[in-house]
């Protein structure tokens, strides 16, 4: 029984979350002494698909017919389930990103499979499959046993650093019958330029009420720009409309796990910490030495953000030039 990975394409390219999922699936396949097969849906150059071989896929099933040109959860989920049957897969891996969240439940129902979503570790166990995932919005972890003969796993972004090796995947055309589309796409907007979306960002600079108003966000943006980081904010900031909702990180916003999270003027309420405490390194800048966030931080700076942050930005620039 092989492992099937849904290799998501974004405008014909594979993104980091795709490579993570393929790498994760290949690691599971290796442990079980079997092959990792990827399924890619939508138009893409053969070279891009062959490249998945470097992350451990032996074969890529490519559904590129007209019905698959555009993401539709019903159509794509059926194609993934059909690919699992064709590849003889008993484990299906997807990324737990926006599209994975739309697909994973559908694929599990189609395959009559058990499902663990948002997993963050390699599965343990020989016959039974048990895997770790964050629960209670990052306040705890659970070891979840996935039941059933077939199993679907969706992998939290930024859980594994995909390692590129040697190898090229064989690409095979795949033409399953297409299930009907969900909806008509009227408009699609992607965030401008090279901004990395929050769930995938490795570096995040975040601001809270301590910044006093939206007009003061310049210092946050300049630091983010110097680092190549994505900007975020706390809930009160999004609620008062200082910053857009999609920047809200925390228990009821986006949960993130970047390598570096810099919190500026955020006190660190339990709901905020829940969404960010899986960050590898946390830096807290706050003028209140009693702010609860310092207890969850690796590095702390007690000082006025309006002095400290521009100084930090300059220091980052100096370090990059040296």
């Amino acid at each position, binding site marked *: 029984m092989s492992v099937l990975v849904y290799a998501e394409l974004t405008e014909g390219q594979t*993104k980091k979350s795709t490579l993570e999922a393929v790498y994760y699936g290949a690691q599971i396949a290796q442990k079980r002494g079997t092959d990792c097969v990827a399924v890619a849906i939508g138009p893409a150059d053969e070279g891009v698909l062959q490249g998945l071989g470097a992350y451990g896929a032996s074969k890529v099933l490519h559904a590129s017919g007209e019905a698959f040109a555009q993401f539709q*959860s019903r159509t794509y989920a059926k194609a993934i389930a059909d690919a699992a049957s064709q590849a003889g897969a008993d484990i299906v891996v997807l990324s737990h990103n926006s599209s994975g969240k739309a*697909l994973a439940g559908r694929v599990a129902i189609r395959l009559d499979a058990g499902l663990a979503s948002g997993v963050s570790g390699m599965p343990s166990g020989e016959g039974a499959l048990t895997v770790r995932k964050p629960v209670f919005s990052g306040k705890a972890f659970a070891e*979840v046993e996935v*039941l059933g003969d077939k199993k679907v796993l969706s992998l939290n972004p930024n859980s594994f650093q995909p390692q590129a090796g040697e190898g090229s995947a064989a690409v095979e055309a795949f033409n399953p019958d297409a299930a009907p589309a*969900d909806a008509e796409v009227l408009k699609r907007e992607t965030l401008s330029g090279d901004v990395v*979306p929050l769930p995938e960002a490795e570096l995040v600079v975040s601001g809270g009420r301590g910044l006093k108003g939206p007009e003061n966000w310049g210092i946050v943006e300049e630091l983010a720009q110097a680092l190549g980081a994505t900007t975020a904010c706390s809930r009160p900031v999004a609620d008062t409309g200082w910053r857009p909702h999609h920047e809200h990180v925390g228990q009821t916003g986006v*949960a993130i796990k970047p390598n570096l999270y810099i919190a500026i003027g955020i006190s660190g309420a339990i709901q905020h910490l829940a969404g960010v405490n899986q960050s590898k390194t946390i830096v807290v800048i706050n003028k209140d030495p009693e702010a609860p966030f310092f207890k969850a931080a690796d590095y702390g700076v007690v000082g006025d953000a309006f002095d400290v942050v521009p100084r930090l930005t300059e220091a980052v620039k100096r370090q990059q030039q040296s």
Partner: protein
Amino acid sequence: MKILVCVSKVPDTTTKIAFTDNNTKFNEAGVQFIANPYDEWYALVRAVELKEQLGGEVCVINVGPAANEQVIRKCLAIGADKAIRVDAEPSDALFVAKQIAAQASGYDMILLGKETIDYNGSVLGGMLAELLDLPYVSLSSKLEMDGTSATITRDIEGGKEVLKVSTPFVASAQKGMAEARIPNMRGIMQARSKPLEVVAAVDAQPGSKVQSYALPEAKGDVKLIDPEQMDELVRLLHEEAKVI
């Protein structure tokens, strides 16, 4: 317009999480339970707004024991017209999806939050849509009706998409969809007499089982850096933490 809203019961967002029975059970002692914020604030309130605007009926469904009725009554107080409680332990998403699907025929729209804040699965909507063979719009932040079609804005990886979808459909809701409502006295009084039907569970197996829980490892002490020494902080991030 008939709308079904799926509501889960979860620990309040300020809950300090702890476990019992050798870390195999969530410790409910002293925990305040609430309706899952995404279900209540966004899915339910938008459903009630649509009903106020276009007429129709909002039904809330919950899978859980009788103790969940307090949470269900709050949803009725916010403006749902009636409720269904499937009398069973909600063992996992697959089990819950099959219970809800068994009660979900005849609605124009099925709404739920984008995830629950306890198990953070984010998969129930997709399961329901597949079980009922309906379109599914995940992570919706805006929903407007025009006759039998809805225009929905939803998050995609790194951006947004505006979709047109025909009823019936399933959609998961998040921030932007509506503003949380606090029930008023009249709503609370009326909620007491609104119909709450208790139905037996259908036969279904769960697809997953939690074996054990763990709390994150405590962080070591914070290293405080002098605000004048930002070069030192950058050096530590580069050489010690190795994150930049």
